[in-house]
């Protein structure tokens, strides 16, 4: 590739035109449109995209270029969009010509680590081979390393991963994802990983307004609307839910939306008489949200009162 010099190298390069023609622009706009909040993440993605475009331009001018290392780590609380962004990342890298195929292989510890001696290496290798030409997304990567068990096979998987991350840098991009504090621990006990990962991207928690925009986006996507009162109730729901345990950002909110659909369906079923129009079928009302036990102190209060659970 570097050996055979292309015929006459162009003297100039138009980055703007390159940006338009590569389709990266569409993808970044799509990212802005579909991902609410996450400003630091978008900023980093934009920087990465710019770097790759410039590298490509340098290559076309015959300047020296070294394929940048693009292994990444995504850290953030549950439900902050790590998997979603990884999926988009695969698309961006594909359009920039950094990976050849642009598919995403999403795995966890179980897919990499074997059950008995000699099982781990082939298993890890198989996953790596499937991910070649695309992006390997390792969710909850810190489970690979178990400090309490020195004979754990996770270490073997880590060694193979590191080796391939180093030797096949052109063939695949590895993204490690997990909760911030545990990932820090993981990186501290595996310095090899830290040095091989160039991009550490942190996913911030969503603000209440962002979560409300997310739920409206989800509803619009599935042809649901909220009455203004319901919207106010949902805003309150988000505030209360955040203070309660096991809050998982957008995931909690999606679950809340799913449950309000459930209640809406039940309400329509019990109350409605006669014909229903499309508007009635797609409107979520205040009562559908207020019925949640989040407004009554959450999961624990429910257990104490031993009421029938209306909130699964």
């Amino acid at each position, binding site marked *: 590739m570097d050996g055979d010099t292309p015929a006459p190298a162009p003297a100039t390069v138009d980055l703007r035109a390159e940006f338009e023609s590569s389709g990266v622009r569409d993808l970044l706009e799509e990212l802005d449109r579909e991902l609410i909040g996450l400003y630091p993440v978008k900023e980093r993605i934009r920087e990465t995209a710019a770097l790759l475009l410039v590298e490509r331009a340098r290559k076309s001018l015959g300047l020296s270029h070294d394929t940048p290392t693009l292994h990444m780590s995504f850290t953030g609380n549950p439900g902050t969009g790590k998997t979603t962004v990884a999926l988009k990342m695969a698309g961006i890298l594909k359009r920039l010509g950094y990976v050849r195929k642009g598919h995403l292989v999403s795995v966890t510890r179980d897919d990499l680590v074997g059950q008995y001696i000699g099982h781990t290496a082939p298993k890890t290798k198989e996953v790596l*081979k499937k991910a*070649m*030409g*695309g992006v390997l997304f390792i969710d909850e990567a810190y489970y690979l390393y178990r400090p309490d068990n020195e004979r754990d096979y996770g270490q073997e998987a880590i060694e193979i991963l590191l080796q391939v991350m180093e030797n096949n840098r052109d063939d695949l991009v590895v993204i490690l994802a997990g909760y911030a504090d545990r990932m820090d621990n993981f990186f501290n006990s595996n310095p090899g990983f830290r040095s091989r990962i160039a991009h550490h991207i942190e996913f911030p928690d969503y603000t209440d307004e962002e979560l409300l925009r997310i739920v409206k986006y989800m509803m619009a996507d599935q042809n649901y609307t909220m009455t203004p009162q319901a919207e106010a109730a949902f805003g309150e729901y988000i505030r209360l839910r955040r203070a309660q345990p096991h809050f998982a950002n957008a995931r909690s909110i999606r679950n809340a939306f799913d449950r309000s659909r459930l209640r809406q369906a039940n309400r329509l079923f019990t109350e409605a008489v006669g014909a229903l129009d499309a508007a009635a079928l797609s409107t979520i009302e205040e009562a559908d949200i207020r019925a949640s036990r989040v407004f009554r102190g959450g999961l624990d209060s429910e257990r104490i009162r031993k009421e029938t659970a209306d909130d699964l």
Partner: protein
Amino acid sequence: MRITQGCFSFLPDLTDEQITAQVEYCLSRNWAIGIEYTDDPHPRNTYWEMWGNPMFDLQDAAGVMMELAACRKAFPDSYIRFNAFDSTRGFETVTMSFIVNRPKVEPRLRMVRQEVDGRSQRYSFETIR
């Protein structure tokens, strides 16, 4: 003696670049690639040793080439071939097979005549190293 078999047997040995391109072709048709090696190229020796399991669900040739590199490292002086397996219902068979590595000094095949009942002759081949 240069042993040939499978696809491309009339061509000079494929370069790694050409092998990669052929593998890409196989993967684009959803064929699984299996790597096999042997030190005995006798035409009747159809079952070669398997290098790992056949590779299903691959998207890119890099994975296959990585295994080939490992196999070459372990058996530099062996014949190595790729078998492309088509799992489509009704085919379920190897649809393409080609040699990707051969020893520097290849064994020869010698024809052996044997006189049997009456004046009949039997012919067989044996590999000589």
